[in-house]
Protein backbone atom coordinates (compact mmCIF):
# COMPACT_ATOMS: atom_id res chain seq x y z
CA UNK A 1 0.00 0.00 0.00
CA UNK A 2 1.21 3.48 -0.74
CA UNK A 3 2.28 5.27 2.42
CA UNK A 4 0.12 8.15 3.55
CA UNK A 5 1.92 11.33 4.43
CA UNK A 6 0.78 12.83 7.68
CA UNK A 7 0.55 16.33 6.22
CA UNK A 8 -2.36 15.22 4.09
CA UNK A 9 -5.68 16.29 5.50
CA UNK A 10 -7.42 14.36 2.80
CA UNK A 11 -7.23 10.93 1.30
CA UNK A 12 -7.00 10.51 -2.45
CA UNK A 13 -7.17 7.13 -4.12
CA UNK A 14 -7.25 6.39 -7.83
CA UNK A 15 -7.93 3.40 -10.03
CA UNK A 16 -8.27 2.91 -13.79
CA UNK A 17 -11.10 0.67 -14.88
CA UNK A 18 -11.80 -0.84 -18.29
CA UNK A 19 -15.33 0.56 -18.56
CA UNK A 20 -17.02 3.76 -19.70
CA UNK A 21 -17.68 6.62 -17.29
CA UNK A 22 -21.45 6.14 -17.61
CA UNK A 23 -21.09 2.58 -16.43
CA UNK A 24 -18.90 3.59 -13.48
CA UNK A 25 -21.28 6.40 -12.51
CA UNK A 26 -24.18 3.95 -12.41
CA UNK A 27 -22.18 1.62 -10.17
CA UNK A 28 -21.59 4.50 -7.76
CA UNK A 29 -25.18 5.67 -7.58
CA UNK A 30 -27.53 2.65 -7.88
CA UNK A 31 -28.30 0.82 -4.61
CA UNK A 32 -28.49 -2.62 -6.26
CA UNK A 33 -25.02 -2.06 -7.74
CA UNK A 34 -23.49 -0.70 -4.55
CA UNK A 35 -24.53 -3.93 -2.82
CA UNK A 36 -22.64 -5.92 -5.42
CA UNK A 37 -19.26 -4.26 -5.28
CA UNK A 38 -18.81 -2.26 -2.08
CA UNK A 39 -17.10 -4.91 0.01
CA UNK A 40 -13.68 -6.23 0.89
CA UNK A 41 -13.40 -9.83 1.95
CA UNK A 42 -12.79 -10.21 5.67
CA UNK A 43 -13.05 -6.45 6.24
CA UNK A 44 -16.40 -4.89 5.42
CA UNK A 45 -19.51 -5.30 3.31
CA UNK A 46 -22.36 -2.98 2.34
CA UNK A 47 -25.64 -4.73 3.22
CA UNK A 48 -28.18 -2.02 2.49
CA UNK A 49 -28.15 1.12 0.34
CA UNK A 50 -30.52 3.99 -0.42
CA UNK A 51 -29.79 6.71 -2.97
CA UNK A 52 -31.99 9.71 -3.67
CA UNK A 53 -29.76 10.86 -6.49
CA UNK A 54 -30.24 14.62 -6.83
CA UNK A 55 -28.55 17.64 -5.28
CA UNK A 56 -29.87 17.84 -1.72
CA UNK A 57 -31.05 14.21 -1.84
CA UNK A 58 -30.08 11.86 0.96
CA UNK A 59 -28.13 8.63 0.72
CA UNK A 60 -27.56 5.93 3.29
CA UNK A 61 -25.61 2.69 3.55
CA UNK A 62 -25.47 0.04 6.21
CA UNK A 63 -22.07 -1.55 6.44
CA UNK A 64 -21.09 -4.69 8.29
CA UNK A 65 -17.51 -4.54 9.36
CA UNK A 66 -15.93 -7.94 9.83
CA UNK A 67 -12.52 -7.25 11.27
CA UNK A 68 -10.74 -9.34 13.90
CA UNK A 69 -13.58 -8.52 16.33
CA UNK A 70 -17.13 -9.80 16.07
CA UNK A 71 -19.09 -8.43 13.08
CA UNK A 72 -20.46 -4.96 13.70
CA UNK A 73 -23.08 -3.07 11.77
CA UNK A 74 -22.80 0.64 11.30
CA UNK A 75 -24.58 3.26 9.28
CA UNK A 76 -23.03 5.87 7.07
CA UNK A 77 -25.15 8.53 5.41
CA UNK A 78 -25.08 11.96 3.85
CA UNK A 79 -26.44 14.28 1.24
CA UNK A 80 -25.67 14.59 -2.45
CA UNK A 81 -24.11 17.96 -3.20
CA UNK A 82 -23.08 17.67 -6.85
CA UNK A 83 -24.56 15.20 -9.31
CA UNK A 84 -23.06 15.63 -12.77
CA UNK A 85 -23.18 12.31 -14.61
CA UNK A 86 -20.93 10.84 -15.76
CA UNK A 87 -18.00 12.95 -14.58
CA UNK A 88 -18.55 14.21 -11.05
CA UNK A 89 -20.30 13.09 -7.89
CA UNK A 90 -19.97 14.78 -4.54
CA UNK A 91 -21.64 14.01 -1.23
CA UNK A 92 -21.27 14.52 2.47
CA UNK A 93 -20.19 11.50 4.49
CA UNK A 94 -21.34 11.10 8.06
CA UNK A 95 -20.28 8.00 9.93
CA UNK A 96 -22.27 7.27 13.06
CA UNK A 97 -20.26 6.98 16.25
CA UNK A 98 -17.56 9.28 14.96
CA UNK A 99 -17.99 12.53 16.81
CA UNK A 100 -16.79 14.65 13.93
CA UNK A 101 -18.22 17.28 11.65
CA UNK A 102 -19.42 15.84 8.36
CA UNK A 103 -16.72 14.99 5.88
CA UNK A 104 -16.82 15.20 2.10
CA UNK A 105 -16.45 12.50 -0.56
CA UNK A 106 -15.85 13.42 -4.17
CA UNK A 107 -15.68 11.09 -7.18
CA UNK A 108 -14.02 12.32 -10.37
CA UNK A 109 -14.42 10.15 -13.46
CA UNK A 110 -12.25 10.71 -16.52
CA UNK A 111 -12.94 8.51 -19.54
CA UNK A 112 -10.35 7.99 -22.26
CA UNK A 113 -10.20 5.27 -24.97
CA UNK A 114 -12.63 2.99 -23.19
CA UNK A 115 -10.95 3.30 -19.82
CA UNK A 116 -12.12 5.45 -16.92
CA UNK A 117 -9.80 6.83 -14.30
CA UNK A 118 -11.73 6.98 -11.05
CA UNK A 119 -10.42 9.27 -8.36
CA UNK A 120 -12.03 9.38 -4.93
CA UNK A 121 -11.16 12.19 -2.54
CA UNK A 122 -12.23 12.08 1.11
CA UNK A 123 -11.68 15.47 2.72
CA UNK A 124 -12.55 17.37 5.86
CA UNK A 125 -11.04 14.58 7.92
CA UNK A 126 -9.19 16.94 10.19
CA UNK A 127 -12.22 19.21 10.55
CA UNK A 128 -13.35 21.98 8.24
CA UNK A 129 -12.12 24.61 10.61
CA UNK A 130 -8.55 23.36 10.59
CA UNK A 131 -8.54 23.05 6.83
CA UNK A 132 -9.84 26.57 6.38
CA UNK A 133 -7.22 28.09 8.63
CA UNK A 134 -4.28 26.16 7.20
CA UNK A 135 -2.35 26.82 10.37
CA UNK A 136 -3.49 23.96 12.54
CA UNK A 137 -2.45 20.92 10.61
CA UNK A 138 1.20 21.90 9.94
CA UNK A 139 1.70 22.47 13.67
CA UNK A 140 0.24 19.08 14.49
CA UNK A 141 2.44 17.46 11.89
CA UNK A 142 5.49 19.08 13.40
CA UNK A 143 4.47 17.89 16.86
CA UNK A 144 3.84 14.38 15.60
CA UNK A 145 7.11 14.21 13.70
CA UNK A 146 9.19 15.38 16.62
CA UNK A 147 7.33 12.94 18.85
CA UNK A 148 8.02 9.98 16.56
CA UNK A 149 11.60 11.12 16.14
CA UNK A 150 12.11 11.15 19.91
CA UNK A 151 10.47 7.81 20.59
CA UNK A 152 12.69 4.98 19.34
CA UNK A 153 9.97 2.35 19.91
CA UNK A 154 7.58 4.05 17.56
CA UNK A 155 10.30 4.78 15.05
CA UNK A 156 11.18 1.08 15.02
CA UNK A 157 7.53 0.14 14.55
CA UNK A 158 7.36 2.57 11.65
CA UNK A 159 10.18 0.83 9.87
CA UNK A 160 8.78 -2.65 10.50
Amino acid at each position, binding site marked *: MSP*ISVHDDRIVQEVTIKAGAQRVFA*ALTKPEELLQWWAAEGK*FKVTHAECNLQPGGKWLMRVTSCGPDAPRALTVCGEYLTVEPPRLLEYTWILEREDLPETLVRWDLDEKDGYTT*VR*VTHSGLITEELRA*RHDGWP*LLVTLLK*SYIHNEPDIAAKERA
Partner: protein
Amino acid sequence: MVSNVSRKRDSVFRAISDPTRREILGILRTGSHSVGEIAQNFRMSRPAISKHLRVLHTAGLVSTRRHGTQTRCQLNAAPLVGVRDWLREYESFWKDSLEGLKRHLEENK
Protein backbone atom coordinates in the same frame (compact mmCIF):
# COMPACT_ATOMS: atom_id res chain seq x y z
CA MET B 1 -13.49 1.93 9.98
CA VAL B 2 -14.27 2.61 13.61
CA SER B 3 -11.82 1.20 16.10
CA ASN B 4 -12.25 0.85 19.83
CA VAL B 5 -9.94 3.78 20.44
CA SER B 6 -12.32 6.13 18.65
CA ARG B 7 -13.62 7.76 21.83
CA LYS B 8 -10.11 8.67 22.94
CA ARG B 9 -9.42 10.01 19.48
CA ASP B 10 -12.57 12.11 19.55
CA SER B 11 -11.26 13.89 22.64
CA VAL B 12 -8.02 14.59 20.74
CA PHE B 13 -9.99 16.02 17.80
CA ARG B 14 -11.99 18.20 20.16
CA ALA B 15 -8.82 19.39 21.83
CA ILE B 16 -7.06 20.37 18.62
CA SER B 17 -10.10 21.99 17.00
CA ASP B 18 -9.64 25.19 19.03
CA PRO B 19 -7.08 27.83 17.93
CA THR B 20 -6.12 28.83 21.49
CA ARG B 21 -5.43 25.24 22.40
CA ARG B 22 -3.33 24.76 19.28
CA GLU B 23 -1.38 27.85 20.21
CA ILE B 24 -0.79 26.43 23.69
CA LEU B 25 0.55 23.24 22.09
CA GLY B 26 2.85 25.40 19.99
CA ILE B 27 4.15 27.17 23.10
CA LEU B 28 4.75 23.86 24.86
CA ARG B 29 6.84 22.66 21.92
CA THR B 30 9.62 24.88 23.26
CA GLY B 31 9.62 23.08 26.63
CA SER B 32 7.60 22.86 29.83
CA HIS B 33 5.94 26.03 31.13
CA SER B 34 3.95 27.06 34.18
CA VAL B 35 0.29 27.99 33.75
CA GLY B 36 1.21 31.61 34.46
CA GLU B 37 3.86 31.66 31.75
CA ILE B 38 1.43 30.19 29.24
CA ALA B 39 -1.29 32.69 30.22
CA GLN B 40 1.09 35.62 29.59
CA ASN B 41 0.87 34.87 25.86
CA PHE B 42 -2.87 35.45 25.76
CA ARG B 43 -5.30 38.25 26.47
CA MET B 44 -7.77 35.96 28.18
CA SER B 45 -7.90 35.32 31.92
CA ARG B 46 -5.81 32.72 33.65
CA PRO B 47 -8.88 30.63 34.61
CA ALA B 48 -9.83 30.58 30.92
CA ILE B 49 -6.36 29.30 30.04
CA SER B 50 -6.60 26.71 32.83
CA LYS B 51 -9.83 25.50 31.29
CA HIS B 52 -8.15 25.04 27.90
CA LEU B 53 -5.29 23.21 29.59
CA ARG B 54 -7.78 20.85 31.23
CA VAL B 55 -9.21 19.94 27.81
CA LEU B 56 -5.69 19.29 26.51
CA HIS B 57 -4.93 17.27 29.63
CA THR B 58 -8.07 15.14 29.23
CA ALA B 59 -7.05 14.39 25.66
CA GLY B 60 -3.63 13.32 26.93
CA LEU B 61 -1.83 16.03 24.97
CA VAL B 62 -0.53 17.86 28.01
CA SER B 63 0.81 16.39 31.23
CA THR B 64 1.28 18.40 34.41
CA ARG B 65 3.81 18.16 37.19
CA ARG B 66 4.01 20.07 40.47
CA HIS B 67 7.17 22.03 41.19
CA GLY B 68 6.76 23.49 44.68
CA THR B 69 3.83 25.87 44.38
CA GLN B 70 3.94 25.84 40.59
CA THR B 71 2.22 23.50 38.17
CA ARG B 72 4.33 22.95 35.09
CA CYS B 73 2.79 21.76 31.84
CA GLN B 74 4.50 19.54 29.34
CA LEU B 75 3.60 18.53 25.81
CA ASN B 76 2.79 14.93 24.99
CA ALA B 77 2.22 14.43 21.27
CA ALA B 78 1.63 10.67 21.53
CA PRO B 79 -2.19 10.84 21.16
CA LEU B 80 -1.71 12.40 17.71
CA VAL B 81 -0.50 9.01 16.51
CA GLY B 82 -4.09 7.82 16.94
CA VAL B 83 -5.25 10.54 14.56
CA ARG B 84 -2.73 9.44 11.96
CA ASP B 85 -3.66 5.77 12.36
CA TRP B 86 -7.30 6.69 11.88
CA LEU B 87 -6.39 8.42 8.58
CA ARG B 88 -4.59 5.25 7.52
CA GLU B 89 -7.65 3.14 8.27
CA TYR B 90 -9.66 5.36 5.97
CA GLU B 91 -7.00 5.18 3.30
CA SER B 92 -7.11 1.41 3.23
CA PHE B 93 -10.93 1.53 3.26
CA TRP B 94 -11.01 3.59 0.04
CA LYS B 95 -8.30 1.50 -1.57
CA ASP B 96 -10.26 -1.70 -0.87
CA SER B 97 -13.45 -0.05 -2.11
CA LEU B 98 -11.92 0.96 -5.44
CA GLU B 99 -10.54 -2.55 -5.93
CA GLY B 100 -14.05 -3.90 -5.37
CA LEU B 101 -15.45 -1.45 -7.91
CA LYS B 102 -12.83 -2.37 -10.51
CA ARG B 103 -13.40 -6.09 -10.05
CA HIS B 104 -17.15 -5.65 -10.31
CA LEU B 105 -17.03 -3.63 -13.51
CA GLU B 106 -14.34 -5.62 -15.31
CA GLU B 107 -15.70 -9.06 -14.46
CA ASN B 108 -19.43 -8.41 -14.98
CA LYS B 109 -19.68 -7.08 -18.47
